[in-house]
């Protein structure tokens, strides 16, 4: 499988269990480099991060002063104590924001987050000049976040600063005002901005997941059998704020985000057969680009959002088709009596990876968006489905591979042809979807009973359960 020994997360001690045991591989989220090559790895990390966010200019004198570093070869250690509530009405929001920010900063694994329960010994500061830097230094902190929240009616004003504990200087200072309705959003925004400033990294704290769920436990209307309704939902990337997108009490499956994250294409059985719909979620508009009458499923927006590739049996058996987003200009991409299904676009929109059982069992193939240059990708799997092409700078395809009674998420590196595993037989794992940064994957797993959505680093570390209610399938990660 081409796995390296450091890519066996189950055999590793829990992440960040002890400061002294941190490995650079953990920090970089790559899992290949050991401390011995720290300098080389740092250079690579800078390159990778630079490619992800080209606007960041590396190694300028001003930046050296702004970026908080940890001890050589280890990630900077962050402390996020509870934010100060200026008035009692702000207490709940202050608490929520600091805790969500803690989780957001931990999620990218760029920083080591000092566990909250060790903060108890440190006197709380009401103002920035009261911050006990020496006490934080003794705790091993390189950086401490200081936030102040004030609530006025339905509005909040949030002030947040990031201090370098060594220099006692503020390197990041922002003020946010707005509705108090969703305090988590302020924390997500801070996290993304801190990641951008400190690591030149596009964080995912404000991204969302779309998925199909039976959590409402409704039964289908006018049906013969007792069958559960499945509706399309969206939630924050951490599973908070779930919202229902469809309400037709039918089967609604395989939602995917448009690149602008304002629309969701999905498969719905509202007419009694599978067909494609596009929900403009902020306008409450449902579009039906295929126009009904044919069976179509598994849509995927092109990276520029202008086209949709999908599976259809309109010509007798499942084949791939591409159409413009409004349904015009339909053309057939594959032509084979076997099943061709589950398409995904390459980041440039010039190729499509898909599943076909033309060789007997389902395997991953790639074809040009013009229908030419078809080639088989997976050759050592017994069964492979749901290819998902990573965004740049990574050049890889994640998929679900049969690895015994169930499935595991694997990743095929297009440059080397090497396949590595991301999950290792804990439950059955399916339907991978990349985060917009390519650093994480959402997938479904049966490891906790039922079918739930999890996220995981592309190196197989940092598994996090996202959904808990009902069964939840086919996640799609927004930009």
């Amino acid at each position: 499988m081409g796995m390296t020994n450091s890519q066996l997360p189950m055999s590793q001690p829990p992440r960040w269990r002890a400061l002294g045991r941190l490995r650079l591989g953990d920090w970089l989220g790559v899992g290949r480099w050991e401390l011995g090559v720290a300098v080389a790895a740092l250079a690579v990390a800078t390159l990778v991060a630079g490619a992800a966010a080209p606007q960041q200019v590396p190694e300028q004198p001003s930046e050296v002063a702004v970026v908080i570093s940890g001890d050589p070869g280890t990630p900077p250690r962050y402390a996020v104590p509870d934010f100060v509530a200026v008035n009692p009405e702000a207490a709940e929001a202050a608490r929520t924001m600091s805790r969500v920010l803690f989780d957001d900063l931990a999620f990218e694994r760029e920083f080591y987050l000092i566990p909250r329960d060790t903060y108890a010994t440190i006197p709380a500061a009401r103002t920035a000049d009261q911050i006990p830097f020496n006490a934080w230094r003794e705790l091993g902190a390189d950086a401490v976040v200081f936030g102040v929240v004030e609530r006025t009616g339905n509005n909040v004003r949030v002030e947040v600063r990031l201090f370098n504990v060594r220099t006692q200087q503020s390197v990041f200072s922002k003020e946010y005002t707005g509705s108090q309705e969703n305090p988590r959003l302020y924390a997500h925004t801070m996290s993304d901005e801190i990641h951008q400033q400190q690591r030149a990294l596009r964080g995912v704290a404000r991204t969302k997941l779309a998925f199909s769920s039976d959590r409402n436990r409704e039964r289908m209307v006018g049906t013969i059998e007792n069958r559960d309704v499945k509706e399309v939902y969206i939630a924050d990337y951490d599973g908070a704020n779930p919202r229902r997108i469809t309400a037709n009490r039918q089967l609604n499956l395989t939602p995917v985000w448009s690149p602008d994250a304002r629309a969701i294409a999905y498969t719905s059985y509202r007419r009694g057969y599978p067909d494609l719909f596009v929900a403009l979620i902020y306008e409450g508009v449902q579009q039906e680009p295929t126009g009904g009458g044919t069976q179509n499923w598994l849509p995927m927006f092109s990276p520029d959002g202008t086209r949709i590739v999908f599976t259809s049996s309109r010509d007798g058996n499942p084949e791939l088709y591409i159409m413009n987003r409004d349904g015009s200009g339909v053309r057939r991409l594959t032509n084979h009596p076997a099943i061709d299904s589950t398409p995904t676009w390459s980041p440039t929109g010039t190729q499509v990876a898909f599943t076909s059982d033309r060789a007997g069992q389902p395997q991953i193939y790639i074809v040009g968006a013009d229908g030419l240059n078809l080639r088989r990708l997976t050759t050592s799997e017994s069964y492979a489905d749901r290819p998902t092409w990573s965004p740049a700078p990574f050049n890889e395809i994640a998929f679900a591979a049969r690895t015994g009674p169930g499935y595991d998420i694997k990743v095929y590196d297009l440059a080397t042809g090497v396949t590595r595993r991301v999950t290792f037989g804990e439950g059955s794992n399916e339907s991978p979807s990349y985060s917009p940064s390519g650093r994480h994957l959402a997938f479904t797993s049966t490891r906790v009973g039922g079918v739930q959505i999890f996220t995981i680093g592309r190196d197989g570390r940092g598994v996090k359960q996202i959904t808990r209610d009902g069964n939840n399938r086919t996640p799609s990660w927004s930009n």
Partner: protein
Amino acid sequence: MARSSSGSRYEIGSTRSVVPMNKRMRGSTTAASVVLILLTGIAAGCARREAPVTTSPTPPLAAPPGVSAPAPPGPPSRVEEALPVPSEPIAEDAISNRSLDALNRDSPLKPVFYPLDGADLDAEGRAAVTANAALLRRHTTWVVTVEGHCDERGTSEYNLALGERRAASVKAYLVSLGIGPDRIRTVSYGKEFPFDQGHDEGAWTKNRRAHFVITSK
């Protein structure tokens, strides 16, 4: 069989006619059980009514009332052939009188079962479709939807296509048996609607199926 050899000719006939039904019952679910119960009920009713007659030494009297007068010698084979005849109109009335929901809850149409990852009809599957075709020929107004279902061992996405292929294989066979394609719709539900929620071979066997639903009659 051993028992029937010591009985009268009529009993021989009735026993033989029941045997294939039992075989069918074993191979299908409760879907066809109403028809079967009706048939066996009639057979049992006849048998009960005729029970005293069977002790009489005159075989021709054993013929059930609905049989068109056979040749006096009354060869046993004729009697067996005739037995299902009275049951048919009764069964049809029972079916015709039932609502769509009642019909589908306890369907006279048999499901087709598949091996893992397979979509081709085996001999048993063809027999089930053939029997369903016979019912569709009798009830000429019925329109059916053939649902393709898969077990949970395939992936969600591929199963949508696999279920489509299962339903399509049934439709193709029905059409080859002379049923109009406009009377058959297909839809795949992948692994979204398992019939058995279990996670073992027993459940998976039931969930890999083409399921018939009568959508209008």
